């Protein structure tokens, strides 16, 4: 059972991911901005994450890569915009396997009663670019009413 909600409306190249954590916002912000902490959670465990640069300030750049067990590397890089703060930050995001396809990611952190909601809003240049991200192994993705859709797919797929 997943707590992570993923929404990607049909026809608009957006993706929204939300999840609530049992932790104060400052700590969540640290986990997103301290490279020593970031490598401990971003991406599936099967990838070794290597952070080359992570300069969290307006105009600061970042680059990291995920390396799989076969030694394949998937690089990502971008630039931070605005003043990163515990309320969140804005960054560009480019998968090096698809140069020129740049997403704009906004991280929004809100704290209520010591719990923090992490919301990432990603804007892609096109729907094709959004979908291609997922095809390439990492990604961003999906639709309003997905619970209903999941239920539908659950019914349909075993029959097919």
């Amino acid at each position, binding site marked *: 059972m997943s707590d992570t909600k993923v929404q990607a409306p049909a026809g608009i190249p957006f993706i929204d991911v939300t999840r609530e954590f049992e*932790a104060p916002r400052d700590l969540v912000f640290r986990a997103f901005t301290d490279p020593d902490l970031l490598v401990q959670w971003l*991406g599936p465990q099967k990838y070794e994450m290597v952070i080359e640069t992570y300069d969290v300030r307006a105009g600061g750049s970042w680059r990291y890569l995920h390396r799989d067990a076969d030694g394949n590397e998937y690089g990502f890089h971008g630039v931070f915009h605005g003043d990163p703060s515990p309320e969140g930050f804005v960054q560009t995001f480019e998968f090096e396997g698809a140069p020129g396809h740049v997403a704009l990611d906004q991280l929004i952190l809100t704290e209520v009663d010591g719990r923090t909601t992490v919301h990432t809003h990603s804007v892609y240049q096109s729907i094709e670019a959004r979908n291609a991200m997922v095809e390439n192994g990492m990604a961003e993705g999906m639709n309003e009413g997905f619970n209903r859709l999941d239920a539908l*797919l659950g019914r*349909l797929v075993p029959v097919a």
Partner: protein
Amino acid sequence: MQPTNLDAVFGALADPTRRAILARLTAGDRTVAEIAAPFAMSQPAISRHLKVLEGAGLITRSRRATARLSHLEAAPLRDATEWLAKYQAWWDESHGRLDALLARLQADPNPPPDRTGSQPTE
């Protein structure tokens, strides 16, 4: 074999009538009249929905005598679920690890780092 147009698939699935039509077709091929029967909707309206489903590759249509049969195509639905599952899995696992990290940090603000499989470079 056409590659699945995921946006067309999700656009087609966004409508409850079209989802209901697909669910009906899991029981087997149907004519427009058979599909329209349980809906308070004219056959031309149902035909328009079938056209959208056909455009997304979710159904194919064939003729048998005078009737036009609609047939559910499984591949685009499977592609759409796999696409979603892959994306969801990536974030589920990341967030699960973040959850565990936040719990460790709150138990001890300066724990020895968990280096299983991840090393930052200087």
